């Protein structure tokens, strides 16, 4: 049913519809209202679930790991420094191939201390072996959360649903939640083939020496790559039952044949999309909304980048000393195209800096003006705020 809901509230209900057995979370900053709302669902008797309030994000991830390993559907949520505190456990979860879901309410990582939205936190754990799906709006966040459980359980690869903090989590807007019956049809009860069971003992996470570690990594890498198929299948089946796609591996807005493209992840896509409607330009431009970042959808990307002459890659994070994170990967993929586009790599909206509605014409102006494409620049930098030597 379509209702006006705050993002966090909708996400809590979406998680509830997936009938988790255990939700573990650190209830204090950096946290969103998601787990607060889940705890209300539990307290009101609307969700039968063990809610474990723990003393740190490290423990939150560990409790969820243990629950999922014992055959119970598990969920957690965090952001920013909380994700970093989980980092060790995130590698354990994915390395042991434990299916579970977490929401990363994307926020900046300190120092300087900053509670606002960018995507540095999830980017910091992009190589942890988790599937990462980025959501452009709260509807996508709800749909992706529900799909995430099925993707995780079919692939035995954990899924991180990346939802821009505040910009989505704290925004109230019309959101449609599927019915329990629909979600039950889409998402069968959790069954884990290697569930811990005292009658049939087995060890998880044992020491693997050099004679097998390489193979373990290879098999994990293949599993995440293969998840591409399951992400598409989950979205297709979801659309069949609920009547709406969550955004596939990626989606394109605008003319497919446009030779200028803007590639972005998360809620900035929405602003760019409206900006494109408001400020039409002479050259046709398309927006590539990258939903799956891990696995990196190489084939799908190659297809939409074919024939593109100018490509803007927008980042909400930065690799200091190198530059763009997504841009680096897209640039490497682009070398396999028959025609290498000019790639303009910009970071925007770091630490919550507003991405204004004029973003699109400004980007088009910048790439038209540039003799050489920007290898990497912070697009909305205000250099006059810095001492001359730092500009």
């Amino acid at each position, binding site marked *: 049913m379509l209702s*006006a809901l705050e993002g966090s509230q909708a996400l809590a209900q979406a998680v509830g519809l997936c009938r988790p057995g255990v939700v573990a979370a650190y209830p204090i900053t950096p946290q969103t209202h998601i787990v607060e709302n889940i705890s209300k669902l539990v307290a009101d008797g609307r969700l039968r679930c063990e809610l474990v309030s723990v003393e740190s994000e490290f423990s939150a991830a560990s409790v969820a790991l243990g629950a999922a390993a014992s055959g119970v559907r598990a969920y957690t949520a965090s952001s920013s420094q909380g994700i970093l505190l989980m980092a060790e456990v995130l590698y354990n979860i994915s390395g042991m191939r434990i299916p579970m879901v977490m929401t990363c309410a994307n926020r900046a990582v300190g120092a300087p201390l900053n509670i606002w939205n960018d995507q540095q936190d999830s980017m910091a754990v992009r190589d942890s072996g988790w599937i990462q799906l980025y959501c452009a*709006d709260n509807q996508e966040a709800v749909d992706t959360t529900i799909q995430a459980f099925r993707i995780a359980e079919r692939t035995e690869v954990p899924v991180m649903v990346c939802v821009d903090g*505040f910009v989505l989590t*704290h925004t*109230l*807007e019309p959101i449609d939640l599927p019915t329990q019956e629909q979600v039950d049809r889409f998402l069968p009860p959790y069954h884990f083939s290697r569930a811990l069971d005292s009658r049939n003992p087995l060890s998880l996470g044992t020491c693997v020496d050099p004679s097998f570690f390489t193979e373990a990594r290879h098999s994990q890498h293949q599993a995440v790559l293969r998840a591409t198929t399951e992400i598409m299948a989950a979205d297709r089946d979801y659309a069949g039952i609920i009547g709406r796609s969550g955004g596939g591996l990626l989606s394109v807005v605008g003319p497919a044949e446009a030779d200028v493209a803007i590639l972005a992840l998360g*809620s900035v896509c929405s*602003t760019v999309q409206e900006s494109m409607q408001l400020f039409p330009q002479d050259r046709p431009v398309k927006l590539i909304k990258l939903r799956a970042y891990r696995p990196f959808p190489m084939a799908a990307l190659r297809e939409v980048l074919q024939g593109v002459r100018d490509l803007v890659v927008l980042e909400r994070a930065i690799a200091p000393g190198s530059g763009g994170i997504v841009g680096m990967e897209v640039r490497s993929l682009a070398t396999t195209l028959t025609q290498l586009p000019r790639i303009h790599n910009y970071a925007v909206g770091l630490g919550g800096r507003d991405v204004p509605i004029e973003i699109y014409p400004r980007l088009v102006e910048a790439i038209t003006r540039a003799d050489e494409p920007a290898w990497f620049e912070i697009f909305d930098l205000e250099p006059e705020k810095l001492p001359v030597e730092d500009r």
Partner: protein
Amino acid sequence: MVAAYLLASAAFEVGRYCQAFPNFGAERRGAPVMAFVRIDAKPILRRSQVRTPAFLIIQDPGLLNVAGVLDGLREGGGILVNSPRSSEELSGETGKAVVSFAAAQMALQMTGKPLANVALLSAFASLTGLLPREALIKALSARFKGDVLEKNLKLVDMAADQVPTESWKDITHALSA
């Protein structure tokens, strides 16, 4: 923040698209906060901050003295203030057309708490003609129950008469771009 969510929810109740969000920060009751609402007949995609609002609702008259609070308001836009002082006085001081009434005082009498939210929203609905009373009631009913709801519904009726009905209707049409 609650006022923004309520206003957006009320707009949703009459079939509008809506968006409400805080000026993200460490919000707590009593501290100065900004929250924004967008209402439209078509889906709202943009996630940028509201820089040039058509209307300003100011819950604490002290904020009128804070530099920049009125900046960005569109030419001819409306300002609604919770204040025991008169509209004429405040308009004179700010140099802009201000509509004022003692919303918090009225709330204190009706509900026992000096929270200007609901009274201001009712006045806003009445000034703009944007939202029928029923929409506000639906939004309130989704958030409050029992005695608190009853008292707030009475507050809605009382506050609606405190301002000139639909006197902002033209602004609403002119600035809804």
